């Protein structure tokens, strides 16, 4: 309550609504006072910017609403500051000058909802493809979800290009990362001087899909396919958001099963990344061995959930499949074997002098840059800031398990590698604790009824960082608004800082050090553009994620 009446005291007349729902302080302010309130808040309280959400509220209140979500680092509390603007003249003050991390989120809202942000440094198109018509904003309620846009002229996105340096396109199809993203490295000799990013080639419009066709219990299966590796965190996060909105009590055993599988997924995601990092550093034997160890975990998940990666377990209110007796026993000895093999592999990896020499001192992310630009997950913790959703905002069964959060201060590639190794070992101990403390009981809450207009916000710690699902429930079993903010979305702007002055041969490992998963970041269907130069097919290239 303290934050609410603090705001009421200062901006009394401008505040329209200030209520708190369990741990979310929801404040609604009038349009022109938004920037001051946020400026005041970020000065007073130690806030961590999470994301901004645009909602087309015309059916209900004939306005377009913008919510900015912050989380309190000190205690498990969220602050949502929103304002509304009329649809005919959608202009809102941009908060990027105050909170640089909000840069991309505001540009996305401009693309998808057409709300212009005054004072934004570069309000260019971020998410939609280059030749998407200017006036159609997909997330507006009146736009049908299966719209095929008519293509007129091919407009190339004008990337700023300094003249004198060599431009090196690390383009959509590059062996560096097996996903379509486009970096432009400006190279001077063997040194990278500047980098430009133009991504979102596989934006698939999952949010639009969630609002129009899928029922509540069908959305988890789509959420699970947002990312090819960290699918389960997305579906758990979605279910928790709806459960929070509906105040549904999830049975104890289901929460344990969810946490166990979340940690299993974290392990196999980190092992995959360690393998890719070894490959980028030329140590292919390391790639093969780390994926060999990972195979044991994939086999274990297949046995527990019926599929190697898309577990398909989550429903609103719990889990669909139980872990039986021999499943637990099997898991324990697999984990023991994996722990011992992993220790031996890590010892070999860190004994290579030349691999370590390439990781040390490259791609340095200073502490204040990390915090200001809103880095998340291992990238943030490698720069010396101890912030982990499992500890700061505990969810599922993490309250029962005791675990330590590895933090390094150098902020270079080596720190990020060591963090991921420690986290994998930490996950093993978490799973072992949870497995022997798992209670009896049913796994799915019965008779859930969902009513309209509730707000739900939940955060989970994905292997790459925190990922947020924001949900507004709608009528006849369909969501009204569903916002997904994947961790790589927050980590990408940080790359610009890390890639400055880094040698060219280490650019790939620096780009991969934030473990980017571009399929998470992009969520619109790329329509088959027939412009003769480049045929962009609509299905997603999941080379890496197809396990």
């Amino acid at each position, binding site marked *: 309550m303290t934050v609410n009446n603090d705001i009421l005291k200062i901006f009394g007349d401008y505040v329209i609504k200030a209520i708190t729902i369990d741990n979310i302080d929801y404040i609604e302010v009038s349009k022109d006072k938004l920037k001051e309130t946020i400026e005041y808040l970020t000065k007073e309280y130690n806030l961590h910017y999470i994301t901004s959400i645009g909602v087309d509220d015309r059916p209900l209140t004939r306005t377009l609403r913008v919510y900015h979500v912050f989380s309190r680092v000190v205690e498990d509390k969220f602050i949502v500051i929103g304002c509304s603007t009329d649809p005919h003249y959608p202009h809102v003050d941009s908060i990027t000058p105050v909170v640089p991390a909000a840069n991309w989120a505001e540009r996305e809202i401009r693309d998808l909802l057409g709300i212009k942000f005054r004072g934004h440094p570069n309000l260019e198109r971020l998410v939609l493809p280059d030749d998407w018509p200017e006036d159609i904003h997909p997330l507006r309620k009146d736009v049908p979800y299966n719209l095929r846009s008519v293509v007129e002229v091919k407009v190339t996105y004008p990337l700023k290009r300094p003249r*004198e340096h*060599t*431009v090196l*396109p690390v*383009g959509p199809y590059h062996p560096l990362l097996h996903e379509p993203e486009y970096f432009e490295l400006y190279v*001077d000799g063997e040194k990278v001087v500047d980098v430009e990013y133009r991504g979102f080639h596989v934006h698939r419009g999952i949010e639009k899909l969630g609002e129009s066709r899928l029922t509540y219990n069908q959305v988890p299966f789509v959420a699970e396919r947002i990312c090819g590796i960290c699918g389960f965190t997305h579906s758990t996060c979605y279910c928790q958001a709806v459960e929070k909105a509906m105040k549904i009590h999830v049975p104890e055993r289901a929460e344990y099963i969810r946490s166990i599988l979340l940690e299993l997924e974290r392990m196999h995601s980190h092992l995959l990344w360690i393998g890719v990092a070894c490959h980028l550093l030329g140590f292919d034997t390391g790639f093969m061995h780390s994926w060999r160890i990972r195979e044991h975990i994939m086999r274990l998940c297949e046995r527990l959930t019926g599929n190697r990666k898309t577990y398909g377990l989550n429903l609103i209110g719990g889990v669909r499949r139980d872990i039986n007796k021999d499943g637990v026993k099997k898991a324990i000895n697999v984990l023991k074997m994996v722990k011992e093999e992993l220790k031996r592999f890590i010892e070999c990896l860190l004994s290579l002098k030349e691999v370590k020499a390439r990781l040390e001192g490259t791609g340095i992310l200073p502490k204040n840059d990390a915090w200001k630009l809103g880095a998340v997950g291992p990238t943030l913790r490698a720069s010396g800031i101890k912030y982990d959703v499992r500890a700061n905002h505990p969810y599922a069964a993490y309250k029962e398990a005791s675990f330590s959060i590895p933090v390094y201060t150098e902020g270079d590639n080596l720190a990020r590698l060591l963090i991921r190794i420690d986290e994998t070992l930490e996950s093993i101990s978490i799973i072992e604790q949870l497995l022997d403390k798992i209670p009896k009981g049913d796994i799915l809450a019965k008779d859930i009824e969902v009513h309209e207009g509730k707000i739900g916000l939940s955060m989970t710690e994905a292997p790459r960082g925190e990922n947020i699902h924001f949900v507004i429930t709608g009528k006849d079993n369909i969501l009204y608004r569903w916002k997904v903010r994947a961790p790589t979305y927050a980590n990408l702007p940080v790359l610009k800082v890390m890639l400055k002055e880094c040698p060219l041969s280490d650019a790939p490992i620096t780009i991969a050090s934030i473990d980017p998963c571009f399929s998470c970041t992009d969520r619109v269907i790329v329509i088959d553009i027939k412009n003769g130069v480049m045929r962009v097919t609509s299905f997603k290239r999941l080379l890496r994620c197809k396990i």
Partner: protein
Amino acid sequence: MIMELLSSITFFTSTLIRTFLTQNIMWPTFLFTLGILLSLPFKREKCNFILSLFSLISCILIIYLSLRVLLTGKILYFEYVIYRGSIYSRIFPFSKVSLIMDQLSAYFTLILGIVGFASSLYSFHYMTRFYGRLSLRLFSFLYLMFLMSMYLVLISNDVLLFIVFWELTTVSSMLLVAYERESEVARRASIKYFVLANAGAICIIMGLGILVLLTNATSFTEIGQKIDIISENKLLYYTVAMLLTIGFSVKAAQVPLHSWLPDAHPEAPCNVSALLSGVMIKLAIYGLYRIIFTVLQPDIYWGLALAVLGMTTLTFGTMMALIQTDSKKLLAYHSVGQMGYIVLALGTGVHLLAQSSIEARTLGCIALIASLYHTLNHAIFKGLLFLTAGSVLYRTNSRNLNLLGGLARAMPITFITALIASLSISGIPPFNGFVSKWTIYVSTLSTLHPLLTLGAVLAIFISAVTTASFVKYITSIFLSQPRIEVKDVSESPWSMGASMIMLSLLCILLGVYPLAPLSIISSVVGYVSYINPECIMSSIILYPSIVLLKPGVGITTSMSITITALLLLILTLTTLLAFSFIYKPMRITATWFCGVLARNVKYTAKSYYTEFEQSYRLMYSLRKVLYEKIVNPLMRAYPTVTRRYDKIQWEYAFSFILALYALSIILMLLFIRVMLGW
């Protein structure tokens, strides 16, 4: 008084014409002067046409004369006594003028002829770029004067004539360097070149002066006969040797004194800079040969000193060339490097010929063959490289490697000839660079002498550095994506193309069939080292298996380079044919930029070898030390002075040099008086 003066002048010119016309050694000079006189009255196109035509014909004549001397072995000799027993002879000892074209000078005139022919053919169209901007008359005067003075230097047997024409060469080349008057850099470079060249000339004058005054003879051959006075007094011998070596090494651009070349050559017009680095710096080598072999006899330590000088030049010259981003500056630094190779081989030859044993002397001859052959090769491919750089300059008007690119399709002839030249300078087997470099390594390594082996090691390493810098040169000009618009660039006119093709054919011919030129060179070496050429040739009959007359090495049958080249051709053709059968029709696609149409993706020349340069900082820091401590203070002395009196810097330069002359003559006289107690 005036009548007497007039009569003597008319008498002098009539005898001049009567005597000169008969001697064929003088025809080229006659043609040059005629060229100058004829081109004076005319303007732009006609003047250029006459200038190029006359220099073309005279160069053909020079080639004919030198080939005749080399093949028939009959030396051309011409002596003309100006005045006998007249009152002046007491004061002025130089009473008669003697010109001689023996095998040695014939070889160098052959080089002059070839490169002169190519550059004059080139200048038919190249000079069109200066119409309107600069006066062609001045250029024709300087250009023909430059060629004539070089020719006369090579054939003058008389010491005074040698010095006079040497100075004439320096003056005319300095003015040619400063031909593009409006560029400040060109003026500054020409002055720097002029001062340094004259400093060298002074050392040469002092050395030759001592020789002349001590032996009281005025022509090289006579001094050579009466050399025993000098050679038994070791101190005098070494001072003269040191003086002459320093004097000649300035013009031969050896390391401590080479700083004028990388500034002077890029500023001159391209056909002149081809001559400059193709022929002019070879005059110094000719001077060294003349002094070492006809005047002072070769000496072991002198040879070693030359070898060490050559080693340092080739290392620093080429290392500096590696990091240049201006096309002509890069080529200029490479001239310094390659001159290092020639002086290294010369030093080895001198060192070996001074020894007594027959094997050493044969090996010495092979070393001399290597150095002479590399002089010829270097003249050809360096001249060709400057001509290609000129043709690129002619079309795109830019020398900056960072901006050029993608000219391979637009200028095919220039591209292919530049490729052949850069392959031969980096010593790729079928081309001529390889043969001469290979002989240098074989001769230096077979001496089993520590210093010379170090020279060979450095030479092999530096040849890789040369290859590297020429890959950068060719890639950044012809192969990468252009940064500046090169759409409307077309091939350069036919005359430029013809001269480039001629030189590149020569490159291939000398590489594939080296036996012909080598027999000529071995006759030159035989003449120089008083070992009959047959004995030398026997050691390289089945070239290049050198049958060392050393017991135990045994005679191995040889596979001459020619067979290697033929094999290479056959193999390439067979694989080419094999290709054409099996693969399906080709498909032309856009270059792959990972699926995106990227612009200005050229990998700039500046960023090519930054890593290598960082890792070998030691070599580059030495250069900085050398410059900061020694050369720059000297250089800085004169520009600060001249910058203040910009307009009178010419007078200042001349007065500075005249003072130096006077000083040198007084010093010389003093030195002789002290040494011999006259």
